[in-house]
C-alpha cells in the first residue's frame, strides 16, 4: 500500500527513463536533446512531488490562518532548474546548427563516417 502511495514517483521514474533512453539510444542530435529535455523535466516533477502536501495549496499566502501550504522550496529550486534546462537546450541546439553546417548531417553515424574518413 505504501508503495502504491508513491505512484507519482514511479511514473516519474518511468518518464525519466524514457527521456534517458531517447537520449542515449538515438543517433539524431536533435532527438538526443529532446530526450535530454524530457529527462530533465521529469526530474523536475520528482522535486515538485517532494514538495507537495496533500490537501495543501500553493504557497502564496492567504489571509486565513488555518491553511496548509505546500513546500515552496522545491518550486524555487525547479524554477532555477527550468532555466538551466532551457539554457542547455539553447546551447545544444546552437551546436547542432553548427554541426549541420559543418557536416551536412545531424546523424551521429554519418558524422562518425565523415570523421573516420581522412
Amino acid at each position, binding site marked *: 500500500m505504501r508503495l502504491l502511495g508513491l505512484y507519482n514517483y514511479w511514473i516519474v521514474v518511468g518518464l525519466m527513463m524514457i527521456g*534517458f533512453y531517447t537520449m542515449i539510444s538515438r543517433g539524431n542530435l*536533435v532527438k538526443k536533446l529532446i530526450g535530454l529535455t524530457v529527462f530533465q523535466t521529469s526530474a*523536475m516533477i520528482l522535486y515538485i512531488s517532494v514538495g*507537495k502536501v496533500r490537501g495543501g495549496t500553493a504557497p502564496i499566502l492567504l489571509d486565513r490562518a488555518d491553511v496548509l501550504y505546500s*513546500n515552496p522550496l522545491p518550486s524555487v529550486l525547479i524554477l532555477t532548474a527550468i*532555466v538551466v534546462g532551457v539554457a542547455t537546450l539553447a*546551447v545544444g541546439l546552437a551546436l547542432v546548427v553548427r554541426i549541420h553546417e559543418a557536416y551536412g548531417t545531424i546523424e551521429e553515424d554519418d558524422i562518425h563516417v565523415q570523421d573516420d574518413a581522412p
Partner: protein
Amino acid sequence: METAIDVTLLALLGLTGIALLRVYNLVTAAMLLAIYSLLCASLFTTLDAVDVAFTEAAVGAGVSTVLLLGTLALVGREEKRPLKRQALPLIMVVVTGAALVYGIADIPPFGAPDNPAQQHVAPVYLQESEAATGIPNVVTSVLTSYRGYDTLGEVTVIFTAAVGVLLLLATGRGRGRGPDDG
C-alpha cells in the same frame, strides 16, 4: 479528485513520452514536446507549484518549441531510423531505472505533511517570510531573497547560454552597429 487528475495527467505524460520515443519526424517530436511541457505544467499546477507551472509553460512550451523549430528549419526535419538496436543503452537505462526504483521505495510517502522536507526548512519560510519581506508569494520571496544568490546564478546561467549561442551562431552581421563599449 486531485489525485485522479494527477494520475490522468501522469498517464498522459507517459503516453506522450512513449510517443516521443517512437516518432521519427522531428517537427512532430517538437510538437509532442510542447504537449509534454503543457502536461507537465498542468501537473505542476495540481501539485501546487504554480510559479513553476507558469515558467514551464512559458519556457518549455514556448521558448523551447520556438528554438527547436528554428533549429529544425536549419537542419532538416527527418530523423534517420536506426538500423540496429543496441543493447547498451537499454541496459544502462534499466540499471539506472532499477536503482531509482530501489531508492525511491524508501522515500517519505507522497504528500504527507510530516515528511522531513515539510518539517525542516520550509516551515520557516512559510511562517516568517511574509513578515520579513512583506510579500505573500513565498516562492517569490524565497527565490529572490532567501535564495537570491541561486537566482543570480540562474540569471547567469541563461546569460552564459546567450554568450554560448552568440559565440556559436552570431554571423557578425548587424553587430557592428552598436556603440563600441555599450
